[in-house]
């Protein structure tokens, strides 16, 4: 499709976006309530109680079905531009989640989150640098994989790629591997969480540390507990997610320094320059929302205003997650193979399992939040 501009672009966005809205409307208005009452194997609400299905998981599944079954692996031209608004909605939702916290509550949980995230981010990077060399992977690919698996799947891979001279195929491979692992964990995590009777705090800490992509962290938390409120899985998971997203420029800098040290060109790269170019500024919106919430400018907790705000937020997330599902191409995931898949999968699984063990051993059942 040709790049469109101005009004033509807006018009091109409408069909796909309307389709996403329509899908979400059907899921929330008809499918989800039907599932709550449907009797399967003699149990009322089997879909919800046994499969833990809710509108979040349904939105992702619907997106996946569209792309991989209905559209034969590719989003059609008429819907393409609309579906490209996916990240806009995910980022908007993340920003609005800032309203779940106050500065004091963020400070209380933030210390644990920062310690855990930083240990895991840099632990994973070192692991990939070591295991990638054992697997005789190209240095550029190791760099991209380290950033993708260490910090935040898509954004970090894209941000690091030019700095380590990675090819587009390297980036695609790293993203496909990380997202593939994330998709599997997105569906498996709620079951593990329920099986181990994790509290929302423990679950949020676990998936916020173990899963690599912002959208997937949100989806996994909301799949466990669809309520958007302080003290729920999404509120905890998001703190971990935000801490990780903030670390992107530092990771990009670290990986770049590692790459160029061997090429003896370190002097061209500065941390300041990378922060200026790569810092995900939407995170500032998250903290602005936290500041407004601390000042009670968004309404008091439990008020009707906050209730409506969270309903709007849940629709924004839902839209983003229909799109997120439609960006999952099963054929692309199958294409990720060989050493990068081995390294990415090993790192992902190691991080996911270790995060669970640490959470079970050291993170209390309830946060003082």
């Amino acid at each position, binding site marked *: 499709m040709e790049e469109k501009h101005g009004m033509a672009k807006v018009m091109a966005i409408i069909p796909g976006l309307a389709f996403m809205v329509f899908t979400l409307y059907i899921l929330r208005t008809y499918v989800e309530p039907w599932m709550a009452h449907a009797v399967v194997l003699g149990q009322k609400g089997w879909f919800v109680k046994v499969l833990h299905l809710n509108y979040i998981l349904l939105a992702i599944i619907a997106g996946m079905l569209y792309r991989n079954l209905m559209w034969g692996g590719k989003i059609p031209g008429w819907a393409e531009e609309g579906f*490209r608004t996916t990240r806009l909605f995910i*980022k908007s939702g993340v920003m*609005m989640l800032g309203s779940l916290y106050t500065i004091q509550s963020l400070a209380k949980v933030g210390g644990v989150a920062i310690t855990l995230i930083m240990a895991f981010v840099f632990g994973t990077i070192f692991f990939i640098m070591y295991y990638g060399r054992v697997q005789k992977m190209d240095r550029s690919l190791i760099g991209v994989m380290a950033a993708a698996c260490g910090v935040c799947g898509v954004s970090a891979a894209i941000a690091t790629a030019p700095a380590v001279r990675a090819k587009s195929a390297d980036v695609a491979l790293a993203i496909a591997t990380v997202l593939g692992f994330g998709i599997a964990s997105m569906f498996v995590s709620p079951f593990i969480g329920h099986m181990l009777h994790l509290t929302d705090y423990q679950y949020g800490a676990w998936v916020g540390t173990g899963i690599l992509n912002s959208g997937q962290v949100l989806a996994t938390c909301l799949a466990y507990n669809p309520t958007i409120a302080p003290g729920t899985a999404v509120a905890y998971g998001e703190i971990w997610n935000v801490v990780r997203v903030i670390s992107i420029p530092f990771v990009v800098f670290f990986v770049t320094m590692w790459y160029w040290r061997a090429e003896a060109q370190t002097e061209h790269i500065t941390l300041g320059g990378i922060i200026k170019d790569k810092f995900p500024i939407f995170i500032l919106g998250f903290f602005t*929302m936290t500041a407004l919430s601390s000042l009670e400018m968004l*309404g008091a907790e439990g*008020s*009707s205003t906050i209730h409506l705000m969270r309903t709007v937020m849940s629709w924004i997330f839902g839209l983003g997650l229909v799109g997120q599902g439609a*960006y999952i191409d099963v054929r692309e995931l199958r294409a990720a193979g060989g050493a990068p898949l081995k390294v990415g999968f090993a790192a992902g699984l190691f991080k996911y399992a270790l995060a669970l063990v640490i959470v079970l051993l050291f993170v209390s059942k309830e946060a003082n939040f």
Partner: protein
Amino acid sequence: MSEPKKNTKMTVFKTDRHEDLAAMFFVTIAVVSVLVYMAYIVPSITLKAPMDGKVVAISVQPEAQVKKGDLLYSMEIKQKKYVHDTLEEKIVTKDFHAKTSGKILSISAKPGDVVKKDKNEILVLEHEKGVLP
């Protein structure tokens, strides 16, 4: 004639930075719309049960004027709390206060009613224009 350039970007914006700014703009519009709608357009709000439990007392009367912070009703709820990583449950009475000043239009619940979160209506409150209910 050359092939039209294929657009493989995952965003409708020029760069990630543009997308971030657009998201900030979108959130501003969404938040301001909610605040204005609630403060100026919605005349009254229906307060539904904030959690599962039993209504034990209604502290206001229809047509009464209430101020922010005034006691509206009390409920008996099951409180779950982890003490040394063990889940403890106990029945407690919790008071619910007005989040905004206004006038009570009607009261649907009465003491003894068993209510479900977000399902059962407790009362309807007409709030002052310009404040967030």
